[in-house]
């Protein structure tokens, strides 16, 4: 026991310490001894990392290699490798499909509307919360407003559809009570985008205030005092102190949100749409699901998915690049 502990103590010191010496020694090392050294130094960390590595290899990278099926006519019985090559057949098929433009338009518009209306909403709520002096009330509103973020999409979609139903839905009851005519919201293509965007705001507005509230607490209180002495009222303070104070945060979040504009969650659209409103509600990911999982055309569906993936990669990558250049946070 004693000896063992002493030994590991010594090796621990040797391994951990003397970084200057290591560099000198390293230059003279062969590849093999370098690997051996790396093994000795990192083997336990590699062991800790192994399950994670396997997860990424199997569930993230294997599917990427599986994307070769987009250039093949995938046959369930032959498997991925034995299926014949078809080149860009499925890509051409998609671009020549009259649905292509409709799907692109629906995906882009839904994302843009969500950005335009969904982005400012939490900022406004955060500014209002920031003005509250009563800490208990503030905390209570915050806690309540985070809640829908943790409710499942299935429940949110159910609520939306039932509340908007023309047969006894509460919204239509209200419209009739006010003397209007009931609207069949979920059957009219024109209503899908507003309904979707509003439900997104309802679900996530509170949660998204967190980051802005954090930025607001970091604004120097002395600036407010100085502004008061200069005779600034509430609005002037908001305009000249608060907003400039949180502007960097707003910029970074905006850029990251622009990067994610094409990443519309599959679940909620899938749960809310129906064939009557495909004209506005059908987006790339729901189309991919129907073509792939319901019609079994794996190659075609994956081609569409990959095409969209490449475009959204460009978006996210550029957004992160810009955010990084501006000195803000980024995904990596």
């Amino acid at each position, binding site marked *: 026991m004693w000896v063992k502990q002493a030994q590991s103590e010594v090796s621990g010191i040797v391994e951990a310490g003397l970084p200057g010496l290591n560099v000198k020694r390293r230059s003279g090392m062969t590849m093999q001894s370098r690997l051996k050294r790396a093994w000795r130094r990192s083997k336990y960390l590699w062991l800790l990392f192994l399950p994670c590595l396997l997860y990424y290899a199997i569930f993230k990278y294997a599917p990427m290699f599986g994307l070769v099926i987009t250039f093949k006519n995938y046959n369930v019985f032959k498997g991925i490798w034995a299926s014949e090559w078809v080149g860009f057949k499925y890509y051409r098929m998609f671009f020549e499909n009259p649905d292509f433009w409709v799907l692109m338009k629906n995906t882009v518009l839904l994302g843009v509307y969500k950005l335009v209306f969904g982005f400012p909403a939490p900022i406004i709520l955060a500014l209002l919360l920031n*003005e509250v002096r009563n800490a208990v009330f503030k905390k209570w509103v915050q806690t309540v407003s*985070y*809640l829908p973020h943790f409710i499942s999409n299935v429940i949110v979609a159910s609520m939306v559809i039932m509340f908007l139903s023309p047969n006894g839905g509460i919204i239509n009851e209200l419209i009739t009570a006010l003397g209007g005519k009931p609207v069949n919201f979920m059957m009219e293509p024109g209503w899908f985008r507003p309904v979707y965007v509003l439900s997104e705001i309802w679900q996530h507005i509170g949660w998204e205030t967190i980051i802005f509230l954090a930025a607001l607490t970091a604004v120097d209180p002395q600036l407010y005092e100085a502004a008061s002495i200069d005779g600034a009222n509430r609005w002037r303070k908001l305009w000249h102190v608060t907003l400039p104070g949180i502007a960097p945060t707003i910029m970074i979040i905006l850029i990251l949100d622009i990067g994610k504009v094409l990443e519309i969650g599959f679940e909620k659209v899938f749960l809310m749409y129906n064939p009557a409103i495909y004209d506005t509600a059908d987006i790339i990911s729901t189309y991919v699901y129907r073509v792939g*999982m319901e019609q079994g055309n794996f190659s075609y569906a994956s081609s569409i998915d990959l095409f969209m993936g490449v475009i959204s990669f460009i978006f996210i990558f550029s957004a992160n690049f810009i955010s990084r250049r501006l000195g803000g946070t980024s995904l990596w």
Partner: protein
Amino acid sequence: MVSAGEVRGRRRISLFTIVNTLILLGVAAVTLYPFVYMLAVSLSGDVYVMKGEVTLWPKGFNLRMYDLVLGDPKIWSAYRNTIIYTVLGTAIAMIITSMGAYALSRSDMTFHKGFTLLIVFTMFFSGGMIPTFLVVRSLGLVDTIWGMVLPGAVSTWNLILMRTFFSGIPKELEESGRMDGLNDIGIFFRIIVPLSKPVFATISLFYAVGIWNNFMNPLLYLRNPDLFPLQVILRNLVLAGSVSSGQVTQIGGDNMVVEDSLKFATIMVSTIPILIIYPFVQKYFVKGSMIGAVKG
């Protein structure tokens, strides 16, 4: 003793405060009212619901709808499945994520940069729905518990959150562990894990909520109705209306409004656990989102 100006100033503030308070109360009402309404309708008598008289408080209070919902064996089996997937999935996810995150937080690990890049790349690009499905299927995970638990076992976002947290732990603590003869695995389990209980709680909750609410994975990877989790059953009962068997629909019958209160009762049954637990755990969620704000 207050001067006229101060009085005017104070009054202006109080007007703003009133308006602001009203707006925020409105936000809270819009958030909470749907739940109150559903609860009220599901607890009310048919007659009052059909007349549209129920708005805030149940009228003709009765628990018949809940008797029906809780009498449906499908709900119970779905509940059991969801709990199994959530508990097992969270446990597996936490083991893989925490160990991986610790290794990634150690910049002295050989290939540290390479591994980090490998993981971050998946945030930008993925194989997509169909190729992932083909991998899951070829592994024989379709229609098994593992299909619900393994494909989502690591969330890159959670992994990076944990890595950031671990990076902030002073290196001296690790050194002291090494002095005591611990290797990196020992340091992780004996020193890092006990120091990181709050972050473990937070990330576990993120995973648990994610699995509890997930609809897409069971939609893609499950065919066997006996394995369906709550979300799928809920969607079939409430949204698709394609309820072929079971008491719930038989008694709901062709009466539209009663069917609505039955659906509301079903929604409440599946949501009440979250509504009850939420106030106690929400501070952990907020903490978790703050780790992300200071990541480097």
